[in-house]
């Protein structure tokens, strides 16, 4: 039998350190926001040669003022053929009032042509294979909706768990979830991973997943509470966690296998999702065992 409960203080300290480190990274370093959050345009460029980000920057920087500080990232999937490189170029053009502007249809085709020509003049064949734009309005809207989605989801879950279990379990689950979300966001910030709409989807899925894990433990505690005689609440919680740990490990491992392989092999647009899920699976499993239940032991009513 593993003692999860007795050493809870150590794990609470570890979690606190992780949460604080994440918050520091989030507030000092910030996020590498995707174009949906920033507003602006993302040009996906395919070059039929192996060139680097700085080569691309060199070739395009004079095409328009906003290109000078464009964010250029190479897109890689394991499956890509040799001799081809793909780049994501993110620019946020401003209009004469300094407001974010979106390219008109005509401007877009002119710009695409200019880029292709700049490469052609240097004997490269390039092709613009994607052009996504998000206006400032949409970016703002997505930010708002994302916050609302996360807050309302947590609230709804708190209510649901209170109804099905006890209020204190709801609090424990929500604390564990906030813990998971903050740490996962911290990883996005620390590793400079792009935070886009898919990443938000990952975080919301993680909420569902981590909660799923937590509920299985709570369910066992609830069941054991009904027939417990004499044993202390600490022992009861610890027994419950031990009874379900095999399931938790097997489930987490199988989910982790799928998600981690997705992270290794998937294309660029799924990568931020797979990254969040990979981190989330680990953090979520940990928090269900070491945070969600141990943290509320004092308040559980028999």
């Amino acid at each position, binding site marked *: 039998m593993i003692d999860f409960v007795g050493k809870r203080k150590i794990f609470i300290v570890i979690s606190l350190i992780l949460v604080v480190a994440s918050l520091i990274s989030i507030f000092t370093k910030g996020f590498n926001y995707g174009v949906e959050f920033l507003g602006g345009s993302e040009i996906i460029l395919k070059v039929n040669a192996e060139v680097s980000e700085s080569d691309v920057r060199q070739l395009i920087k004079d095409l328009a003022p906003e290109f000078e500080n464009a964010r250029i990232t190479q897109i890689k*999937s394991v499956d890509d053929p040799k001799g081809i490189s793909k780049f994501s170029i993110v620019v946020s053009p401003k209009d004469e009032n300094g407001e974010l502007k979106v390219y*008109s249809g005509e401007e877009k085709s002119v710009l695409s042509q200019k880029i292709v020509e700049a490469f052609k003049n240097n004997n490269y064949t390039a092709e613009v294979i994607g052009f996504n734009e998000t206006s400032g309005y949409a970016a703002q809207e997505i930010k708002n909706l994302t916050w609302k989605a996360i807050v309302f989801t947590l609230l709804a879950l708190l209510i649901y768990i209170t109804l099905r279990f006890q209020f204190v379990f709801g609090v424990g689950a929500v604390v564990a979830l906030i813990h998971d979300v903050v740490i996962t966001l911290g990883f996005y910030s620390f590793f400079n991973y792009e935070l886009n709409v898919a990443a938000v989807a990952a975080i919301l899925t993680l909420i569902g997943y981590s909660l799923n894990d937590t509920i299985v433990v709570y369910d066992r505690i609830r069941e054991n509470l009904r027939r417990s005689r004499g044993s202390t609440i600490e022992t009861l919680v610890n027994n419950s966690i031990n009874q379900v740990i095999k399931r938790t490990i097997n489930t987490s491992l199988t989910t982790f296998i799928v998600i981690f392989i997705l992270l290794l092999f998937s294309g660029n647009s799924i990568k931020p999702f797979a990254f969040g899920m990979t981190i989330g699976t680990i953090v979520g499993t940990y928090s269900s065992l070491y945070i969600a239940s141990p943290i509320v032991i004092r308040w559980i009513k028999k």
Partner: protein
Amino acid sequence: MKDNKVRGIITLIVIALAFLSLLWPTSEGYKGLASLFSRIKLGLDISGGARIEYKVDIDKSVENPSQVAEDVWTVLRNRLDMANYTEAIVKQTFREENTFIIVEIPGATDTARAEQLIGSTGLLWFGQVIDSTTSDPKIDPNLVNEAKREKAEWLLDREGKTWYLVKKEIANISNLKLVSPKIVEAIPQVDRNNVAGYVVTFKLDKQYADVFKRITEKLYVPEDLINQGGVAYQQALKKRLAIVLDDRVQFAGFVTAKITDGSALIKGNFTLDEAKQLAAILKSGALPARLEKVSSGWVAPLLGADIVSASLKAGIIGIILVLIYMIIFYGVMGIVADIALLYNTFLLLGILAATGSILTLPGIAGIILTIGTTVDGNIIIYERIKEEIRRGSSVKAAISTAFSKSFITLFDANLTTIIAGLFLYYFGTGTVKGFAITLIIGVLGSLFVNLVVSRFFLELFSGAIKVKGASKGGARA
């Protein structure tokens, strides 16, 4: 045993339905394994294409905003059809009290042309029809000359079938023309003389009423003359009134009354939809709404295909590893879990095909995640079975107890995921919605698969299930 027969039958029927919906013949010519997926609609992020989203900015003073949004939709649909973008999808969505119109053009490699088309405010004008033909006038020298002589233009009608020779100046009177007039009202109404038909009434802004009056005086044709035929009718044919928008003749017909107050009625034996469309077109010049582009993007089909193959490969490798893992850990029960996993994957694909849901890239991620929930449900049940056997139950009794005890766990655990999915759907934009749909369907599917399909196979194979350490007792990890 009888219960299990019922489970077996349900199991077979459901999977048969899923395959039926997947394999129902389609026009798309996929072959081999790919034909399994040919009925699933792919999102533009996978199949390639352009997507433009507009916010419909409606004047605050408008009484009926939903009607305005409806009219904007009709005008856009009409314009895209005219420009041969018939495969384009135009849809309305609502978020936070705002209306959005999304235009999706599958396979388009450039949004520039579509954007110009949608963004431009069409020019609406009234003209006089001088001649009409159903053959292409540009290749007939006589017709080309006729247009030059009359200083008129050959324009196609809405359906692209009939050409009309139209000129702006009515009855050759210079300055008697009506270009981009403000139409304050246009309403489809039931035709009082024709039970099945509809008419369109419209009202011009006061400042245009006088010009319109002079036009109707010039083009006036008495109704009995139209029915008479003969030379007079041939003459009347040169006095038809045309309504032109975006260089297409939207309507051509006789003026049967002189109109003094700018309120007119158009008859044409329309269906309700045709009447609505004509009304929207008439109003398009004066729609109290502005279209603001909020996002646009296009994905080359190439990029989509690359990503799909890489992600699919990842998914398949992941599934195979999980399948092996489960057999190693749970033996016969692992095989049941594998059946359940494949079952739920095909069930999900079948539901996507049957409901016409669109599969987006995050949707693929949702499917992969479903694997997790299905396996999880099985593991919860198996651990219970093992526990019961260790306590000394027979395998059959253990299965039965495990299911009744696991039900509440599965229910609570999956419902919370569904709650998260619902919020994701409600607040999500674009492809995230697709993810939420696959997540919700997948979780519901895994609940069904765990409770019905897994149980059926477990009871079927119960003779082969062995649990190590049954005598030791206790539930050690």
